[in-house]
């Protein structure tokens, strides 16, 4: 067990590699109830706080978006679903209080449901574990009964695999988890969640993105609506447009290392003798049997194939910029 965002969380059950492989080859169950589920009624008001198209989000659809500050930095990254008549957003555990305070300060009415449970079933066999969700496609959302329990189900996740995130009343969470385990899902902890998301090239708030990170530098351009940027009508829009116009000074890239030694967060990235960046996340990738990292480098070095050194225990480990994701996504569209 480890402390994470104020919660006692399992780092692993049987072992990170076994849990990781269970997710890549079968179905893994993650308890992510620490994440904050909130309800928002006013899509137009919420849209003012994010760079994505929210009013155009159709009922039954979900989108990845960002809460930005005036400087264009990322307050949080989140999923928002139109489950009609209201929106449901899922906030990072360590940011949920900050997010809600920000939204309320901006005049947005938010109903928090932090006591709700959230379970993620991820992997190629996820649909066998959650047949109730079979009709959903990637990024669909629906209110459904799962194992007889009323839930809000989205076909999405944080592993790069097909899968579902399933929210239900907190009191029903244990029964839902037992039902999903009985259907063959393998329990997986934070360790595997981290190695899976890193292989999938997905950012972790607090490591890879934060209040001083521009979404442009973080390669999150897909979350920036051209229409919204042109309208310049959301918090942080002017700053984001300025970064887009000037180009970011640094860019988030994937890095594959030679050898087997991983480079961890805060390792220096050097080109010959010059400091050109810093690792923000790193692990040994079980699916690749090789170490991988995410980090920021000078923007002119962001091209895949660029050779770099990562400094680990005062020694340079050679690596090169790799295209993301490291492991292909397997979403069911």
């Amino acid at each position, binding site marked *: 067990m480890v402390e994470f965002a104020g919660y006692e969380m399992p780092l692993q059950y049987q072992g990170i590699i076994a849990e990781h492989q269970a997710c890549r080859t079968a179905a893994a169950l993650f308890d992510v109830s620490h994440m904050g589920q909130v309800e928002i009624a006013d899509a137009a008001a919420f849209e003012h706080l994010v760079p994505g198209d929210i009013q155009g989000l159709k009922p039954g659809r979900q989108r990845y978006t960002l809460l930005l500050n005036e400087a264009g930095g990322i307050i949080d990254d989140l999923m928002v679903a139109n489950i009609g008549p209201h929106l449901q957003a899922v906030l990072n555990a360590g940011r949920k209080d900050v997010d809600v305070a920000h939204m309320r300060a901006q005049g947005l009415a938010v109903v928090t449901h932090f006591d709700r449970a959230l379970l993620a079933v991820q992997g190629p066999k996820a649909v066998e574990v959650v047949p109730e969700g079979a009709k959903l496609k990637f990024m669909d959302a629906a209110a459904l009964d799962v194992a007889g329990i009323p839930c809000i189900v989205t076909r999405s996740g944080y592993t790069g695999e097909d899968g579902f995130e399933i929210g239900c009343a907190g009191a029903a969470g244990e029964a839902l988890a037992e039902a999903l385990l009985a259907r063959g899902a393998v329990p997986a902890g934070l360790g595997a969640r*981290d190695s899976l998301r890193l292989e999938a090239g997905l950012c972790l708030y607090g490591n890879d993105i934060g209040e001083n990170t521009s979404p442009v530098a973080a390669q999150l351009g897909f979350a920036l609506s051209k229409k919204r940027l042109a309208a310049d009508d959301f918090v942080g829009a002017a700053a984001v447009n300025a970064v887009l116009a000037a180009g970011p000074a640094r860019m988030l890239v994937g890095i594959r290392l030679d050898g087997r030694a*991983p480079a961890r967060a805060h390792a220096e990235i050097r080109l010959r003798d010059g400091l050109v960046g810093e690792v923000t996340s790193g692990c040994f990738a079980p699916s690749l049997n090789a170490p991988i990292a995410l980090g920021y480098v000078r923007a002119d070095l962001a091209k895949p194939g660029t050779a770099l050194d990562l400094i680990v225990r005062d020694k340079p480990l050679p690596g090169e910029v790799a295209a993301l994701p490291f492991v292909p996504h397997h979403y069911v569209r």
Partner: protein
Amino acid sequence: MSQVFYSKDHEWVVLGDDGLAKVGITDHAQNALGDIVFVELPEPGRNVATGEACAVVESVKAASDVYAPLSGTVAEVNQGIVDEPALVNGAAEGDGWFFKLRLADAAEVNGMMDRAAYDEFLSTLA
């Protein structure tokens, strides 16, 4: 069967017939570390002091130091765990040994724990 000595840093030591002290990490330690994916061992010939960090094990998630349980000179290292780090998980107190030390002072082992004392030490950690 040679006697095995244990440290509070979860290393074990066996004094061999070759006059060298074979060092590894305990089964408790490998279990706490999880799947080991990389091992870095000291250069043979290096002098190490008791408690000095002299090897590194990396799991998927984190790096951990391994300390010299006794002072001496590194005489030999186990290339087997460099080539196959999972051997440390599979046989921590056997084929997954780390290195052999030529001890500076053989009497220093008397300051280490025997199995019963180490088991009692482990029971205090829960």
